[in-house]
């Protein structure tokens, strides 16, 4: 069966005074129906721009989707008219944003904000929409839901606002739910509540979920497959279990080694990735990770490594077969990093 979402060679550029920022550079990935895909990367790696490109919400100017195709259920979203997009956005693809404080409209009641899409997409009457909105708030675990429809966003706590956002997102039973750092702004006990909620709704509604995060812990617990992004490119993709057991891109290996784990003993020295992510303006034709890579060789500086198959259902953008077991080269170059 064809995947629900199939992104092929997506390129999104931003035109700035200093030059063209290739925020997303020939990115390809897919999401199957009912599946959860994790997109991992640090800030500025292009993961949020990818999701905004799918929704066709890139502000233009300065941004522009410069190339590629985004097939959603067989239809190329980049060719769709604005009217067709309106029918898809919020209805068939919905999005949960990172910051529940700023992504709700402060001057409308939450009831109004939820019923808006119900009336528009599902053609419900006002009364039907309100009763459905109460059902939705109840579904996402907001106590005495029908009473809270008349409340404004400021009357809710951060976790509750994120629940309202989720209620809005699932209101039209979307086929694909894009969650862009859904728990980053929340405390850890609230994060557990929200992740549990997304998992439960995914099962109930049989929705495909694309979860964008920098937290490898969230990815480990939530996803079926993972795509790792670095400097606007996909650098590794595999099934979640495979990626964590056998990472093949030095960036992924570095990330896994650099984070402290709750189940670690004390005293294990962290191995940070040295240096900083590169600027995305005029990225030269070399491996974008090479300045920070412990395993760098001369070949890395001659061309951008393509994403190649390294194992079954596992692709990595590294020219060499490097694994967690590969010994570090003897000379450890000094850098800014301590």
């Amino acid at each position: 069966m064809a995947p629900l979402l199939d992104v092929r060679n997506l390129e999104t550029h931003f035109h700035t005074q200093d030059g063209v920022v290739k925020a997303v550079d020939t990115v390809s990935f897919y999401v199957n129906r009912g599946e959860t895909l994790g997109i991992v990367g640090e800030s500025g790696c292009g993961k949020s721009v990818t999701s905004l490109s799918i929704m066709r919400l890139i502000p233009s100017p300065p941004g522009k989707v410069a190339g590629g195709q985004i097939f959603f259920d067989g239809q190329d979203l980049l060719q769709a008219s604005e009217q067709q997009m309106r029918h898809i956005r919020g209805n068939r693809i919905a999005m949960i944003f990172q910051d529940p404080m700023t992504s709700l409209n402060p001057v409308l009641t939450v009831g109004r904000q939820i019923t808006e899409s119900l009336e528009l997409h599902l053609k419900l009457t006002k009364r039907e929409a309100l009763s459905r909105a109460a059902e939705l708030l109840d579904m996402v675990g907001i106590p005495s839901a029908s009473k809270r429809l008349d409340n404004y966003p400021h009357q809710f706590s951060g976790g509750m606002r994120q629940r309202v956002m989720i209620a809005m997102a699932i209101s039209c039973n979307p086929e694909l739910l894009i969650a862009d750092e859904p728990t980053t702004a929340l405390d850890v006990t609230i994060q557990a509540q929200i992740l549990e909620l997304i998992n439960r709704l995914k099962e109930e509604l049989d929705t495909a979920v694309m979860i964008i995060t920098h937290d490898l812990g969230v990815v480990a617990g939530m996803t079926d497959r993972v795509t790792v992004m670095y400097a606007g490119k996909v650098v590794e993709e595999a099934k979640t279990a495979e990626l964590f057991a056998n990472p093949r891109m030095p960036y992924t290996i570095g990330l896994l080694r650099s984070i402290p784990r709750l189940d670690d003993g004390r005293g294990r020295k962290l191995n940070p990735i040295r240096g900083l992510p590169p600027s995305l303006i005029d990225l030269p034709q070399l491996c974008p990770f090479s300045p920070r890579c412990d395993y760098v060789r001369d070949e890395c500086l001659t061309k951008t490594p393509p994403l190649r198959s390294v194992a079954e259902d596992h692709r990595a953008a590294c020219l060499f077969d490097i694994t967690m077991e590969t010994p570090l080269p003897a000379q450890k170059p000094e850098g800014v990093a301590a």
Partner: protein
Amino acid sequence: MTSLPPRSGDAANLIEVQDLEMHFPVTRGIVFQRRVGTIKAVDGLSFSIKKGETLGLVGESGCGKSTTGRAILQLYRPTNGHVIFEGQDLTTLKGDALRKMRRRVQMIFQDPYASLNPRMTVGDIIGEPIKVHRLREGKAVRERVDELLGLVGLNSAFANRYPHEFSGGQRQRIGIARALAVEPQFVVCDEPVSALDVSIQAQVVNLLEELQQKLGLTYLFIAHDLSVVKHISDRVAVMYLGKIVELSEGAKLYSMPLHPYTQALLSAVPIPDPKVEQQRRRIILEGDVPSPLNPPSGCHFHTRCPIMIPKCKEEEPPFTDYGDGHFAACWRARESAELMPTVARKQAEAIAARIAADIAKVKVKSKVG
């Protein structure tokens, strides 16, 4: 509240906090401000930190952990309690004596973007405390700045640049250099890595550890990330609504937590390993942290506690030593370790039942195209 005279404690302790309270008034009205309530941000904390030790302080936002750090350094003057540093009660110091003391205790701030003056060069930012405290004169100031930049892993040529030219991780290094400029003994690190990217966090954590070894520093490390706190701390204190609910040697707190809040907090942290994640059962706490303006009676945690008994509502549990300096404030501390897994199992069952029920409901709804 209690106002005991400062006790002379253990000589190995660099800093002793006794019954620290920090209350903020809530007022209404513009000209005549009526006091309508009190936020008890920090409500009776007692702990000590040994020389060369790192005490981790964890808790969710709004639990009062940053306020604790600031009240210890006298950036807020505490409402009550004592902070004994090297035999001196900091809460009684004023004017010049207070300024002199500030040389010994410093702070590293959370936000590397807001805590550096954008109009000053890096050299001026780091040099200012040296000049204020007259630690060096003339050219020697600049030499010391270069030395400090080297210490935190930055090029000394950066001294003439402005903060906006640096990344978050580099700025945090500048903030650390500024804190170390006055040769402090005690440093409060207030969420020093939370604003940084994952790959940069480890760089700064390692730097803080190296500096501690090199300079013999003592840290109070405040953070909400339990994994980072576990990594860096010798002992860890868990805060909830202005109180410490559990305090213990780090490894023990994580392996054998006594307080249900600690247990829930630990179970909520995702571990970056799918195999481990599949086996784990989370304890999901209902609801949000209550408002510190009107905290619950008895044990502050009883409104969210899954193993609450009637006594919790009425009486505040004492902060008791359960052996080897493992303190907890819970009436059911001895049994909680046995009770909580059952809670987690029941929650998982309830969720599964809810999914089954909801699926039936959802299937009825048809979609209008």
